[in-house]
C-alpha cells in the first residue's frame, strides 16, 4: 500500500531502511522531528488545580457572586434604585412644600455645630493618647525596660518560627 507520507516520517523511515550503523543518528534526529510534528496528548483544562485539590493544597475559592440569593439581591437593589430615581422629582417637590428655607438653614447650622463639637471631643482623646504615649516612651527609654522588650520580641519570634515549622511539616503529609 502506498500512501503519501509526511516529510519527517519519510526521512525517518528512509534512515531506518538504510540498515547502516551510521544511519542511527539521522534516524534518531528524524524520529525526534516526527514527534515534534505529532502533538503529545494534552492534559485536560484545570488539571493543575485538580492536582492541588487532590493533594489537599487548593483552598476553595468562594465566589460571592455565584449565589442565586446574591443575584436576586442585586436585581432587587437595581429595581429599587430605578424606582427611586423615577420618584425623585416628586419627593423633591414634597420636601420643598414640607420645609421652609429657614428651617433648612437652621438644621444645617445645628448639624455644623454638632460636627464641630464631635471633632473637638476627638481632639481631646488624641491629646490624652499622645500624653499617655509620651509617658510610656519615657519608661521604655530606660535600658532595663528596653532590654526586657527586646528579649520578649526575640522569644515571640522564636515561638512563631517553631509554630510555622510545625504547621508546614503537618501540611506536607
Amino acid at each position, binding site marked *: *500500500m*502506498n*500512501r*503519501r*507520507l*509526511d516529510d519527517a*516520517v*519519510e526521512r*525517518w*523511515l*528512509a534512515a*531506518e*531502511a538504510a540498515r547502516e550503523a551510521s544511519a*542511527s543518528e539521522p*534516524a*534518531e534526529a528524524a*524520529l*525526534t522531528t*516526527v*514527534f515534534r*510534528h*505529532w*502533538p*503529545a*496528548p*494534552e*492534559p*485536560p483544562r484545570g*488539571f*493543575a488545580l*485538580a*492536582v*492541588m485539590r*487532590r*493533594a489537599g*493544597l*487548593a*483552598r476553595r475559592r468562594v465566589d460571592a457572586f455565584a449565589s442565586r440569593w446574591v443575584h436576586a439581591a442585586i436585581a432587587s437593589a437595581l429595581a429599587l434604585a430605578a424606582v427611586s430615581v423615577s420618584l425623585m422629582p416628586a419627593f423633591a417637590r414634597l420636601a420643598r412644600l414640607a420645609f421652609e428655607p429657614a428651617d433648612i438653614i437652621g438644621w444645617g447650622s445645628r448639624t455644623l455645630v454638632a460636627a464641630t463639637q464631635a471633632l473637638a471631643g476627638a481632639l481631646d482623646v488624641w491629646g490624652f493618647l499622645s500624653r499617655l504615649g509620651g509617658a510610656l516612651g519615657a519608661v521604655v527609654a530606660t535600658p532595663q525596660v528596653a532590654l526586657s522588650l527586646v528579649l520578649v520580641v526575640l522569644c515571640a519570634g522564636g515561638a512563631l518560627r517553631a509554630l510555622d515549622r510545625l504547621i*508546614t*511539616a503537618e*501540611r*506536607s*503529609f
Partner: protein
Amino acid sequence: MARARAGAEDAYYELVRRYERPLYGLVARIVRDAATAEDLAQEIFVKAFRSLDAYDPARKFSSWLFKIAHNASIDHLRKRGLETQPLESGEEEGEDLLRRLADPTAVSPAQRHERLEMARALESAMGRLRPEYREIVVLRFQEGLAYEDIAEATGLPLGTVKTHIHRARKELAEFLAQLGYHPRSETRRASEP
C-alpha cells in the same frame, strides 16, 4: 523549588503547571487511555509533592519526577495485567484523542484526513510496542531527554537504554511498514520492473 519544598502552595502549583504537559504526555502514551492517564498523572504529582523532602536538589527535578512516573506507570500496568487499550479501537474516547493528536496545523480536509491517518498509524504502532519501549521512546523523542537522564528515570543501565531505544525505533518502523507506510524510495524500488 526551595519554596515548594518548604511547603509554599503557590510554588508547587507553578511546578505542576510547568511539568503537567510532559508528565501527562508521557503517562498518556504509556497507559493509552485518557481517563486513566489523568488519574495516574494526578496521583504522580501528589506522590511527588509528598516526597519532596526526599528530592536531592543536585539532581534534575524532571528526571526525579519522571522516575516517580515510571514507577507509578509500571505498577499500574502490572496491576492491569499489562493489557493495553488501543486508541485505534474505534471507541469514542480513543477517536477523540486521536483527533486531538492529529496535526492541528493541517488546513484542508484532505490534509487533516491524511494527518489523522498518520496519527492513527503512529498511535497504532506505538500501541504495539512493549510498555517499557513505549516509555523510553516518549522520553527520548517526545521529551528530548538525554540517554543518561532516561537511565536515571527508568533505573536501567545506560547500555540497556541505548539498546532499548535502538530496538524500539526499529520495531516502530516495522509496525508502520506493516500498516503500509514505507519510504518513497523503497516503494519506487519495489514498483520498478
